[in-house]
């Protein structure tokens, strides 16, 4: 009788579970599996105008590879994507962790800095980008002119070689928001006893930062770094906000290129873009797992 009741209970639980899972799973089946399966099929398609039908072809891949390595093709766009990621990783993550440490320690002004660091991530990105664009094109040349007496063009002036460095600076500058919150939250979970003991032993803040704090938030750092790798080829770097109609590849990233072609309604390029996306997905897969394995060896596994 007891077993029967248990079985009925388990059956009811299963019916409830299935009833609430079915729609999310249907969504996943259509918008993840379906979309990606369709993307793979699309990558091998080419519209044959003579036959008025789609044909199977590898041409999209060969054309994408050819564009990737041609002098005025997508090679510079790919390089920009990696350069942007590296700056974000080295400078952005380092500064975010340092700021988070300052906030976690509740030093002077930490509450104020926490708000200021978070604000750029709640202000509309299009507004923030436009303000930065106008400032760098109008105010910065004027300021330099006052200081040096020479005439300068705007940092974001079309064709100027300062445009992409300015884009990198901007993207790192607005990147702190959620990451500072996450890191400082992770730091706040470090047991107080460890910190107090280190104080008693005369451990400096620098030593505490590098030897205690960073190792103990390692899993959070690892999560951000691993997820960030996936963003190398999806990060649009706010370029659409700065230059909505640009075709200048020297300032583009892969993420921007892939999005902008779709946004401009270039339906004839869909198979080509799908092939490119597939190539980058295949490249990301081993890099992500490789970095995850590497970090798993370096980052200590801690529980507290």
């Amino acid at each position, binding site marked *: 009788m007891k077993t029967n009741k248990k079985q009925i209970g388990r059956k009811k639980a299963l019916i409830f*579970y299935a009833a609430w*899972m079915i*729609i*999310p799973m249907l*969504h*996943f089946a*259509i*918008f*993840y599996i379906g*979309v*990606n399966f369709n*993307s793979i099929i*699309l990558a091998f398609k080419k519209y044959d105008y003579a036959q008025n039908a789609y044909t199977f072809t590898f041409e999209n891949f060969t054309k994408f590879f050819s564009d990737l390595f041609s002098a005025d093709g997508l090679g510079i766009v790919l390089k920009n994507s990696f350069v942007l990621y590296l700056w974000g990783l080295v400078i952005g993550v380092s*500064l975010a962790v340092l*700021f988070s440490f*300052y906030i976690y*320690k509740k*030093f*002077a002004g930490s509450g104020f*800095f926490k*708000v*200021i*660091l978070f*604000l*750029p991530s709640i*202000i*509309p990105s*299009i*507004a923030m980008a*436009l*303000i930065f664009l106008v*400032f760098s094109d*109008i*105010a910065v040349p*004027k300021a330099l002119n006052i200081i040096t007496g020479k005439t300068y063009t705007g940092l974001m002036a079309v064709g100027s070689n300062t445009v992409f460095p300015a884009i990198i600076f901007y993207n790192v*500058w607005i990147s*702190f928001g959620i990451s500072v*919150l996450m890191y400082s*939250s992770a730091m706040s*979970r470090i047991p107080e006893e460890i910190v*107090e003991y280190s*104080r008693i032993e005369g451990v400096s*803040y620098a030593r505490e930062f590098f030897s205690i704090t960073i190792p103990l938030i390692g*899993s*959070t750092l*690892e999560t951000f770094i*691993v*997820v960030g790798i996936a963003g190398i080829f*999806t990060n649009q770097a706010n370029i*659409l906000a700065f230059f*909505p*109609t640009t075709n200048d590849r020297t300032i583009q990233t892969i993420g921007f290129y*892939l999005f902008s072609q*779709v946004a401009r309604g270039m339906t004839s390029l*869909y198979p080509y*873009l*799908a092939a*490119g996306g597939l190539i980058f997905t295949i490249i990301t897969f081993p890099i*992500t797992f490789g970095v995850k394995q590497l970090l*798993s060896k370096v980052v200590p596994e801690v529980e507290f």
Partner: protein
Amino acid sequence: MKKNSKQPIIIIALVLAVLYAVSFVLLMVWATISSLKGRFDLLGNPFGLPKKWMFENFITAAKGIAMDVPYGYSVRTVEIWEQLFYSVLYAGGSAFINCFVLCVVSYLVAKYDFAFSKFVYGIVVVSMMIPIIGALPSEMQIMTTLKLKDSFFGVFVLRASFTGMYFLMFYAQFKNISDGYSQAASIDGASHTRIMFEIIFPLVKGTFGVIFLVLFVNFWNDYQTPMLYLSSKPTVAYGLYMLNAQPRDNSAGSLPVKLAACILSCLPVVILFIIFRDKMMGNFSVGGLKG
């Protein structure tokens, strides 16, 4: 124990934080003052106060954000008030649906130890680590085929996803809730649905509220999804993008007017932030991706 804030690492952090704060505050103050100038005043006098205070720039900006959208065989103009309505609908609806689906699925995975739960958890982790790149053309095709383009229903369907970082946050919350609550309710005869909605979900309403707020702000600021999937129902963010990309007329395209439009678009989210600051910047925790 007194903190010695004079140690080098703290001084470096403080100097950098002050530089950052000064750069941000100065930029926003400069933008606000510049939005009140005439176009030639801004070009010739970027750092001074306005020669003539042009408060009407904000009215020009509000009119300039208006967009002409297809309407049957003609076009109609969507003014800022209508865009505000669409923004609230898009941001609020998308945030609620996304949050609700995340909450339900993470609850089921955390509290029901069926083998399928492990599979779902795995899907979330893998999809976070390996996003499929370049799937947008395919997504456009599917949205078009399913006739979900240019409708709020379509966008809400698109947003009803359970993958992403917030799943892990909800999951961690549900894992921390004792099974005793649901067991006691079950003994009293409560159904699984009742336990979920009336016992467990109220325990995570704080987290739900925070994630809803964060998602609301994200969707409020999103101009790309409305660009692709709500072309005849533009939001304020999309209107601002178009003001920069294709100004309706000469006055709307002037730099001070664009800055005024930027300031206007910031106001709703800044007000929300002032009211809900503590909740939005509360304790976020995401576990590791071990295993």
